[in-house]
């Protein structure tokens, strides 16, 4: 169920980290929209900038990060909000399932208390009411014996249970928009499938930004897919279009590297984000590169209905 007005619109987002070696341009001129109830998968390797993008939306990056551009949520630019207003957005309107569930819970506090904290903060429930709500959430993410587990500490949870608990935490206040950062990383195949099925069920009417390197998960859950490389979006479009008939050479290489499809790795390695190549950032590794590719920087070009790619070959 989608409406026409996008819930989230990212315009020209640039994120840079000042380091002693120079400014690391983790994200460069990102444009993105997500509609209500839509799941967008963000695919890419480590270092492509996908996690940074997710964190930037909630302004969870380090204070000395340079951020430019606009992040419009329901029409309001999140980047221009004062911190106090942003705190009202976090957890309540937009929530995030962080990348590493093993270290994302505070080890000295009980899991139930950590979930109840969010509930008390945004939903106004106190004490036993908040605790009961937390238990209820743990139950909804299919954790067995939720009342007992709520009183346990994080180190008592298995990997899969921790992931579910993290999801429960994110959904505690029923946010309209969820950012999930690699929720299936490091899980075994069975648990992975369970988490994915839980995910699709629990986020039926929610907008989701699903950050992952797991192509299969993207195929299962997402309506649209965006592929990131070296801090840029190189291809974006409906999931079937992008994954079945990829256009950008990188996407094709990515899919070609899957075990089922031949496991051919892409030669070379990702470029430095401090001094990225002048033209197309993928050109050094691209088998189809022509002279133009190294000199001109390609923009996103429409290659199909709602399907865009950043490649000279289609310009």
């Amino acid at each position, binding site marked *: 169920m989608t409406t026409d007005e996008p819930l989230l619109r990212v315009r020209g987002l640039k994120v840079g980290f000042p380091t002693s070696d120079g400014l690391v341009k983790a994200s460069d001129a990102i444009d993105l929209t997500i509609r209500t109830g839509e799941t967008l998968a963000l695919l890419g390797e480590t*270092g492509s900038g996908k996690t940074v993008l997710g964190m930037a939306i909630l302004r969870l990056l380090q204070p000395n990060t340079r951020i430019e551009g606009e992040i419009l949520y329901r029409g309001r630019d999140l980047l221009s909000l004062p911190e106090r207003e942003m705190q009202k957005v976090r957890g309540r309107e937009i929530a995030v399932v962080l990348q590493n569930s093993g270290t994302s819970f505070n080890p000295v506090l009980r899991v139930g208390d950590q979930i109840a904290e969010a509930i008390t903060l945004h939903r106004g429930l106190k004490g036993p009411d908040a605790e009961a709500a937390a238990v209820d959430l743990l139950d909804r993410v299919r954790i067995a014996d939720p009342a007992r587990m709520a009183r346990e500490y994080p180190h008592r949870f298995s990997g899969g249970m921790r992931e579910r608990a993290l999801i429960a935490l994110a959904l505690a206040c029923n946010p309209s928009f969820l950012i999930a950062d690699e929720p299936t990383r490091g899980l075994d195949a069975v648990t992975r499938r369970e988490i994915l099925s839980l995910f699709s069920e629990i986020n039926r009417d929610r907008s989701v930004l699903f950050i992952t390197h797991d192509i299969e998960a993207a195929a299962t859950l997402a309506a649209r897919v965006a592929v990131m490389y070296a801090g840029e979006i190189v291809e974006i479009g409906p999931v079937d279009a992008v994954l079945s008939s990829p256009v950008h050479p990188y996407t094709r290489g990515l899919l070609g590297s899957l075990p089922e499809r031949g496991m051919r790795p892409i030669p070379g390695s990702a470029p430095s984000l401090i001094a990225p190549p002048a033209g197309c950032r993928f050109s050094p590794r691209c088998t189809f590169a022509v002279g133009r590719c190294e000199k001109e920087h390609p923009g996103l070009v429409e290659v199909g209905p709602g399907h865009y790619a950043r490649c000279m070959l289609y310009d």
Partner: protein
Amino acid sequence: MRSFGVTPHARSSIRVWRWVTVSGHNVALYLSLGVILVYCAIALFAPVIAPFDPFAMSGSPLAPPDATHLLGTNDLAQDIFSRLIWGTRATLILGFLGAAVSVVMDTIIGIVAGYYGGRVDEVVMRFVDVMMTIPAFPLLLVVTIFFRPGIYVTAVIMGLFGGLNGVRIIRSQVLTLAVSDFVVGTKALGAGDGYIMGRHILPNILPLVGVKFVTSAQHFMLVGIGLGFLGIGDQNLVDWGQMIERASQNGGIILGLWWWLIPPGLAVTVISLALAWFAYAWEERINPRFQVMRV
């Protein structure tokens, strides 16, 4: 461990701080080093700098500061300023010699324990734990009053008793080094343990050892002067601790003789501070705590 969304205070102050600290650390480093060198020079050239013999009666007792006696005289009519100058020697000897002994001991134990690991490490560290329950300072007091050693022996005993604090830090560093690639590689080439410990491990922990030396020096200076304060120091040398004690016992407080009481304490505090700052600035340099950005 990622590193997003942390120390959440204003952007500009971190940027300003970074700039200030980079040069601020250099300022602290060089300033404190300068102070330390000045003290060393004073100690070395004491006979030349001091106007009077520190033990000679050179005026009337308890006289306030004037042109000849810059800091007045004490109850024995000795020139306080000269005694202050000469006292530098005792302080530095106690600090540096004690630190040297202590650091050598710590380093040897730390390297052996860290390098061999396993059972050796366990046994050694347990021994260290037991040794650390012995109250070093009271034991030091008892030994020095009965031994009545001169200043050099006192410094050595101080180092022996008061060491063992740095063992853990050195050991943990050596533990990491011992399993690092280049050490394992050198072992594979047939190098002996002693060779590896001396030629490979030691140079890599020298910065750590250096910092420990400086902090130990600060510690032993204070302890050594403390001995003087309790009346245990070497009576043949001028000792700031003795000066403070004499000043407080013989009317320094009641009579308000600040020129007798304050300078020795101030002198100790300044060198102590210089050493502390130097150690801190140096440690910040060799131990970057800035976190790595992982995207």
